[in-house]
């Protein structure tokens, strides 16, 4: 305990220097801005800003880059709530209830609860990293390919719960998502699958391309169906910040979301993507009136947003303690550390305590700054909703196109968002939800990879999924959930849980 306090003291003495405070603020601000712009993600931004950090000392540079990362997570939920475009996999579920709240004139409250939930989750996650960072890495070591496969299966079962309409349609969408995920060059054999000989498909479909097309472009097309009537949003911006009753309703969700997000974030095999919708699924399951979900339930924003932020913080654990990057942004952080002469690995904590504890302290400071930056901005963001469609839509399309181009510098990606936009529009018209498809897409790719790796390791013996305790438990939970959903006796109540209309 005294060690912890001494370490945190060291961390804060590093993070509170004038220069590092400034860099932290700058990182958070830039991160929020690029997070709000649809399509411009943290990877492109950090890669572009890397050269600017060459002149800084490594601690300051990494504090700024980390600020961009969690600032972008934060800003991404703003776009998800206001214009229904998820910037990355983790904000898909925020669109479900967050955007509905915005349509009901409660955008300010949705943004406010997202900010507060995220701050709380960030605080808890920072403490968790500081106190248990090193022992928690043991958890990462328990998870092999078979365990990750089971985790992803459980995730897909959760995905069914996300559906607002018919369960059959949701399952169909999940499967289409899984199919789309298998487009591209096969990891193990080098064969191209479903590319139709088109070379731009050989690396598969990018998540951002799919998300921006299915949500962003499709949403714009759908809105163009009707003449502009947004009276609700127009007339009453309503309260800007959550009331006491809202907070009371959201608090338990924030707590649960924080716990789920923190645990999943520690897994280096990209477990953090599951956080937000595991949280959403649980909130919907235990809610007294599940039919409110998808219609602007505040718990549906508070829980997933907390899980998202907790996960994005705890995903620093595998990076800082093991040197293993759990996702593309963290891989970029590894590069940034290397360029600054620090080789990430298990030795960083002992060899560069300044860097390790300084970054941890700066994460909490960064979360506080995000709250300070974002709460006053809520009013401004909400006012953005009053911008007429004829100005807003071209602007969104332009930012989407620029953003998508900045990721891979491929013109074909821009054309693909148009394609997926039309597909998304068709799906909305036919009553299919795009969210389960996106989750099927994200999980499908991981699931296939882990499944085949486990089977190669076991030389094709499927018993590998039942012999290992963690795998077996996760798979049993998934089966129980599926059976519960399919048993005729429970059919009636299941319909109440899953169906909205």
């Amino acid at each position, binding site marked *: 305990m005294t060690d912890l306090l001494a370490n945190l003291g060291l961390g804060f003495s590093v993070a509170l220097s004038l220069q590092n405070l400034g860099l932290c603020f700058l990182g958070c601000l830039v991160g929020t801005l690029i997070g709000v712009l649809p399509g411009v993600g943290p990877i492109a931004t950090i890669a572009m800003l890397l050269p600017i950090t060459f002149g800084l000392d490594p601690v300051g540079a990494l504090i700024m880059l980390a600020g961009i990362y969690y600032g972008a997570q934060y800003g991404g939920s703003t776009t998800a709530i206001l214009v229904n475009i998820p910037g990355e996999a983790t904000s898909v579920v925020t669109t479900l209830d967050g955007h509905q709240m915005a349509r009901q004139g409660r955008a300010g409250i949705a943004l406010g609860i997202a900010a507060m939930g995220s701050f709380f989750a960030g605080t808890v996650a920072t403490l968790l990293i500081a106190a248990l960072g090193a022992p928690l890495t043991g958890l990462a070591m328990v998870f092999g390919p078979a365990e990750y496969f089971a985790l992803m299966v459980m995730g897909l079962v959760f995905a069914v719960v996300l559906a607002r309409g018919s369960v059959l349609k949701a399952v169909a969408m999940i499967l289409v998502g899984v199919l789309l995920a298998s487009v591209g060059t096969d990891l193990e054999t080098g064969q191209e699958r479903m590319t139709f000989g088109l070379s731009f498909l050989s690396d598969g479909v990018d998540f951002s391309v799919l998300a921006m097309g299915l949500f962003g472009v499709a949403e714009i097309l759908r809105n163009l169906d009707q003449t502009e009537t947004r009276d609700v949003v127009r007339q009453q911006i309503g309260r800007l910040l959550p009331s006491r009753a809202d907070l009371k309703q959201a608090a338990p969700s924030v707590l649960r979301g924080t716990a789920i997000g923190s645990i999943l974030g520690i897994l280096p095999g990209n477990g953090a993507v599951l956080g937000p919708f595991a949280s959403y699924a649980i909130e919907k399951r235990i809610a007294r009136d599940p039919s409110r979900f998808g219609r602007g339930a505040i718990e549906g924003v508070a829980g997933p947003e907390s899980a998202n932020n907790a996960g994005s913080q705890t995903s620093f654990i595998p990076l800082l303690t093991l040197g293993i990057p759990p996702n593309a942004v963290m891989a970029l952080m590894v*590069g940034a550390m290397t360029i600054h002469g620090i080789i990430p690995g298990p030795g960083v904590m002992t060899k560069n305590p300044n860097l390790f504890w300084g970054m941890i302290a700066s994460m909490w400071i960064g979360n506080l700054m995000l709250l300070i930056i974002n709460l006053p901005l809520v009013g401004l963001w909400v006012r953005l909703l009053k911008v007429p469609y004829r100005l807003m839509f071209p602007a969104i399309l332009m930012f989407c196109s620029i953003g998508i181009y900045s990721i891979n510098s491929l013109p074909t990606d821009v054309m693909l968002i148009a394609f997926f936009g039309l597909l998304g529009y068709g799906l909305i018209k036919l009553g299919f939800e795009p969210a389960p498809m996106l989750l099927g897409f994200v999980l499908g790719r991981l699931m296939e990879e882990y499944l085949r*790796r486990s089977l190669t390791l076991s030389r094709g013996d499927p018993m590998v999924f039942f012999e290992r305790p963690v795998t077996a438990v996760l798979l049993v939970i998934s089966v129980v959930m599926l059976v519960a959903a399919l048993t005729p006796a429970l059919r009636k109540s299941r319909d109440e849980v899953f169906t909205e209309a």
Partner: protein
Amino acid sequence: MTLPTPARRSLLLGLAAATLAASLPASAQAPYPIRPITLVVPFAAGGSTDVVGRLVAQKMSDVLGQQVVVENVVGAGGNVGAARVAKAEPDGYSILMGTVATHALNPLMLKRKPYDPVTDFAPISLLAVIPNVLVVNPKLPANSVKELIALLKASPEKYNYASSGLGTPLHLSGELFKSMAGVSMQHIPYRGSGPALNDVVAGQVPIQFDNLPSASEFIKAGSLRGLAVTTKERAPSFPDIPTVAEAGLPGYETYTWNALFAPPRTPRPIIDALNAAAIKALADPTVIERMKAFSATVVSSTPEQLADHVKAEIVKWTPVVKEAGVQIE
């Protein structure tokens, strides 16, 4: 190995300075560069090629007086970025960070060849050589390459080895090891070194071929056992780890190299200016020190030496790729 030794390298530096002096009148006629130069790195930001590229680009900017901007053009194992530079204007404003993958391995494995590594590029200079390393989980009962070979021979098909992906230099290092040692083990491809390291440290997969830079801290911390480096000589950062050749497989040698290439038909004065800038950047003490900390060795060359190097690498890898039977569409 066609690479210059340190002694020859200093001679080369002198030669390069002479070339620079000779090219000065030409660059006085048509000033180059007058705008920022794009350095296409065909791999993701943060990886070892990107790190070398950015370190060199930063110093080259100082030397040339114009920004050398790194652009990551990712896809198809490096081919998308390489093909882009092969087809770019030969004006010296787009250059490529080529590697053993883009200029030797990929062209050998691909059924559809997007470019020719020899005729579609104008070589500028070698930049760095990065050793690969054979690491095992510390629980594996093998303390040396000889013991590992004995273990693999005692139970064929039992063991697996991890690499950063199908057809990568690390995968082929493993295949070369298998064929030279006459052993069998199952290849497990990952999406990059990070996830592979995680499973090897955790013991899911016992053996891995990795870049020395990404495995170095794990070896130092004792969470991986470094059995041998794959270069001809021991790595300066790990003098205690033997080479594969001296530990039991004489003649075994693989390494990852990085080099600068321009589009074909780029005018000679521009190539010379870039070559001189690269050599100057590589002579910078901070670059040398950062590269050394990263277990990479700075190696410069003339354009002609790089051209010969590419041809030699293609000759060397052709039988390995054939034997491994790796074909990518």
